């Protein structure tokens, strides 16, 4: 990491000095934002695709007359206006207005898995959703390969993301959990590196969730199933793979919410700048004292 003292900031020697460190390599920043674009398009077009058959199953097969483990729908059997519902296992929740039943562009209620403002395109168009999804799926895979190749070549993966044994000690992990719960963020020298939870989370997303999305996605392709039969077996069948695809996507959404919340709490301008220009400001005690 290169560092340059903030010029123009004439700080009295007693106060902490602000130091700009070069935190993110160009390839990391570039692949981060391409990944952001890809995941966004994949998510919203994925919800469009899900809406074509808003139910999830476990096993090799699953259709209308088979038991589903998750379902979005509208119940029109009761008296009065229809009710949108989400069902997980045997628990059903009234989700009118958002899931199962929501307003369309003309303002009327329509039966629809996810609402128009969460799907790409907003209107119901499975064919268009698939076009977006598969184009950005290719871009997403290419981008991830560039990131991993660069990360192996420049050492980013093992140097910045792999936690040290010391960081993995229960005491250090518990301390980090406590720090996160108290929203206490590392300052000074400690902010030069990712903390243990951060490393484990990033590794989990990059090493588990993103590959799981690709593999379960491929397992849903009948062409790929003929090429790699073990892939669909690995997930316990095509419908299981579809369900895992949905769960992994939900976990990525959860990650994005926490990730953005953490960036906002830790100092949005500094964090955002570091992911755009690479420069991250840390406060350090004056070494000459």
């Amino acid at each position, binding site marked *: 990491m290169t560092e340059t003292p903030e010029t123009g900031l004439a700080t009295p020697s007693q106060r902490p000095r602000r130091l700009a460190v070069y935190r993110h390599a160009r390839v990391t920043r570039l692949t981060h934002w391409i990944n952001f674009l890809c995941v966004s398009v994949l998510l919203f077009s994925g919800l469009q695709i899900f809406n074509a*058959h808003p*139910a999830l199953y476990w096993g090799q097969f699953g259709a209308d007359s*088979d038991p589903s483990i998750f379902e979005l729908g509208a119940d029109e059997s009761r008296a009065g206006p229809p009710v949108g519902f989400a069902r997980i296992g045997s628990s059903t929740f009234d989700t009118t207005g958002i899931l199962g039943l929501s307003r369309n562009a003309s303002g009327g209620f329509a039966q629809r898995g996810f609402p128009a*403002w969460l799907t790409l*395109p907003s209107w119901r168009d*499975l*064919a268009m959703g698939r076009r977006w999804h598969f184009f950005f799926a290719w871009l997403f895979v290419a981008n991830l390969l560039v990131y991993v190749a660069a990360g192996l070549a420049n050492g980013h993966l093992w140097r910045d993301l792999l936690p040290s044994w010391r960081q993995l000690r229960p005491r250090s992990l518990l301390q980090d959990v406590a720090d996160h719960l108290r929203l206490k963020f590392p300052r000074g020298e400690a902010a030069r590196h990712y903390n243990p939870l951060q490393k484990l989370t990033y590794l989990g997303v990059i090493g588990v969730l993103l590959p799981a999305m690709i593999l379960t996605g491929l397992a849903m392709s009948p062409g790929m199933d003929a*090429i790699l039969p073990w892939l*669909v077996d690995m997930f316990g069948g095509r*419908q299981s793979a579809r369900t895992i695809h949905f769960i992994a996507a939900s976990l990525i959404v959860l990650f994005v919410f926490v990730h953005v919340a953490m960036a906002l709490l830790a100092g949005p301008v500094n964090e955002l700048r570091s992911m755009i220009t690479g420069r991250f400001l840390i406060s350090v005690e004056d070494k000459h004292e």
Partner: protein
Amino acid sequence: MSRIQLPRRRFLALSAAGLGGALLAGCDRLSETSEVQEVLSSAESLTYRVQRLLGGRDALAREFTEADLSPVFKVNGSSMPEGEDYAALLEGNFVDWRLRVEGLVANPLDLSLEDLRKLPQRTQITRHDCVEGWSAIGKWRGVPLAIVLQRASLLPTARFVVFHCADVYERALDGTGQYYESIDLIDAFHPQTILAHSLNDAPLSVGHGAPLRLRVERQLGYKHAKYVMRIELTDRLDRFGRGKGGFWPDRGYEWYAGI
């Protein structure tokens, strides 16, 4: 410090929300732009090439056992072709039905169901994957398409097999609502590509495409044309329907539905 940061945070949150909304609206606009559609569609040929490269001609779709069969095999798409011609064939139990094989062939054929049943047969228990997302496992029996095509003897210029169907799926003013589908010769000569006349040990029901439907196991359900009346060998697909090689491909879906 915090007093200064709060509006800044709120500003960032609001801009993020505004940006999100603008992006979604922008994507809607992009979805309607033909240049964008063309760029997005370029992924299809990449998928096709890669799958053909990895799978080659003969990678087989998984075959299951009787224990894996779906209790109910969902009927989708057309469930009863309209028109007097089909009604008459159905009433006669398809005794008068003939499968015509023509186009770029040296030896055009007219085959009855009886003729087809006398040819070598193949039985396969496979998973049917609908583009909507559901799957069903069924036991299909029929004639490998390769055997029919060998009898018809393809001309060297033949590149695609087009399946003309009895059902009109959409009342389109330009007459393009007739269901049809097409596949390349790699899939046409694939060992699991059959002209099926039975499902789960019974003759095909009307809902499942009686008397004959295509099974092309490495692709999605809409490629598996039902109510096949005529097979045409051709060197180009732009002469049919709206030119994209199938009823659903004409309506924006991939012609190569291996994904």
